[in-house]
């Protein structure tokens, strides 16, 4: 294991998301910020880096600078990043570089959007497309796919179709992933859906069976509704700082032990394969940097925009071989109680469609705060972000 971590997470926060009727995007960011201040007693004047997403539902010019004004912060460094579902992971990498280089002492990685309540039904379907950038548009630069009616479920559906063709995986095996994450999300009334918000609203907290998943409406064959990410309102905030400062703020900081990134492009039809992605490279780099092997991972939080994303990610990360994902999930390895408890909060399929919760959950698991979904004695947690089908991959290895 890396003996000398240089970057730590001193605190995490979540807005009361899910279906947050009446709240604006920046308000969700503010809620997450306040929750973070409750988690970690930092003087806000000490936050000298602010990294955000570029929200879709309520876009704002220079969003991160506006957020600093809204929150009353005055950082040395700020930027609004656009890396799809891997945006918080990308910002974690930037925050780590800022802290490690000494350019910043305490960086807030914030994320949020208003997709549940500020998108119309039509917008939601388009947003599901634009999560991977494919608006149905005939205008450049979308003229080579937009006119064919792509949606995000269709693109990830093609991923599943190809996986079934190459490896003989089955709809039941894909559905089994949703079953696992729904079981994990069922007892989780954490930040999203509980405190203040109506319990479970906007969330899929009812446990399901493989049969239930396959009986849910078809969205884009072979993917059913219960295999597609929630469209949510959310806000998350993570404080990244030096191990020394983190230890002053909390008795149980979490350390960034390893980090890897790989990016091969954007459009699915340009990817060399739609079942094998550079996830393997980012994972190899992150595990090597952390000095750990895969069997040392206690908790895995991976980007599960669709069941196909999760299947391919498990394989590409090397937790099982190519084509072995189906048997792996059916054997229960990803379940709480399995050898690789995955998406212990419920992930995008059950807990919330927001992108920052994976890192928040990984942190809370390592701090031992997760109640009935706690993985006993968790020492190493991995948070895996993917985007652009899975052509962008960012792997974070966190530890105590």
């Amino acid at each position, binding site marked *: 294991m890396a003996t000398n971590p240089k970057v730590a997470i001193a605190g995490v926060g979540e807005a009361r998301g899910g279906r947050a009727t009446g709240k604006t995007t920046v308000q969700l960011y503010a809620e997450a910020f306040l929750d973070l201040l409750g988690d970690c007693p930092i003087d806000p004047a000490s936050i000298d880096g602010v990294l955000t997403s570029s929200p879709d539902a309520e876009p704002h010019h220079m969003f991160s600078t506006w957020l600093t004004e809204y929150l009353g912060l005055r950082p040395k460094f700020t930027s609004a990043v656009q890396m799809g579902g891997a945006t918080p992971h990308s910002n974690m990498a930037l925050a780590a570089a800022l802290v490690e280089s000494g350019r910043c002492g305490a960086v807030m990685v914030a994320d949020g959007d208003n997709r549940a309540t500020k998108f119309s039904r*039509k917008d939601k*379907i*388009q947003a599901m*497309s634009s999560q991977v950038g494919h*608006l*149905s548009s*005939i*205008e*450049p630069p979308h*003229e*080579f*796919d937009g*006119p*064919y*009616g*792509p*949606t995000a*479920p*269709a*693109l990830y*559906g*093609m*991923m*599943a*179709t*190809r996986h079934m*063709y190459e490896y003989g995986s089955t709809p039941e095996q894909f559905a089994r992933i949703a079953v696992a994450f729904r079981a994990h999300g069922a007892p989780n009334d954490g930040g999203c859906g509980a405190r203040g918000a109506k319990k479970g609203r906007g969330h899929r907290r009812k446990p399901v069976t493989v049969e239930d998943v396959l009986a849910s*409406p*078809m*969205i*884009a*064959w*072979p*993917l059913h509704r219960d295999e597609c990410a929630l469209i949510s309102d959310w806000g998350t905030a993570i404080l990244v700082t030096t191990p020394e400062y983190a230890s002053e703020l909390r008795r149980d900081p979490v350390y960034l032990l390893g980090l890897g990134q790989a990016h091969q492009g954007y*459009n*699915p*039809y*340009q990817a060399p394969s*739609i079942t094998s992605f550079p996830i393997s490279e980012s994972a190899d780099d992150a595990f090597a940097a952390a000095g750990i092997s895969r069997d040392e991972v206690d908790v895995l939080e991976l980007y599960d925009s669709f069941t196909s994303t999760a299947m391919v990610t498990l394989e590409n990360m090397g937790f099982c071989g190519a084509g072995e994902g189906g048997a792996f999930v059916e054997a229960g390895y990803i379940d709480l109680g399995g050898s690789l408890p995955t998406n212990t909060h419920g992930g995008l399929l059950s807990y919330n469609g927001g992108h920052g919760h994976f890192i928040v959950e990984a942190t809370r698991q390592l701090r031992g705060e997760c109640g009935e979904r706690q993985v006993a004695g968790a020492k190493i947690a991995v948070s895996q972000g993917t985007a652009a089908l899975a052509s962008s991959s960012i792997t974070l290895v966190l530890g105590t």
Partner: protein
Amino acid sequence: MEAQTGMRVNTVTQPYWDGVEQGKLMLQHCSACGAYQYYARPLCAKCHAAEPEWREASGNGVLYSYSVVSRGPSPAFQAIVPYVTAIVELEEGPRMFTNIVDADPESLRVGEPVSVVFREGPEGLRLPYFRPAGA
């Protein structure tokens, strides 16, 4: 610039859309490294030589993968569900995003041969589509 109503083209994509008008599937070919590429760019993304030339593709390929869409992204597409989005791997090498037409979605098989056909789509644009070879 408009190649056809509603479709804006630019100096790089013009030959592609001119080909569509004439019922030809045009691909860029790099004279430096021999690679074909789809979509149109001012350089070869493989060897970075400038200004790839244009060649007519055979229009034949295989179905690389597909999905059958039940929830369309716009009223025009919602009106034609279920429709098939697909990635087709062309004989020349590049893959393109398209729809499979003239086929029962349940009869489709990954790897099956497909060939190009030019049609007006749900948004009124003339576009290259693919159908099972021999259909």
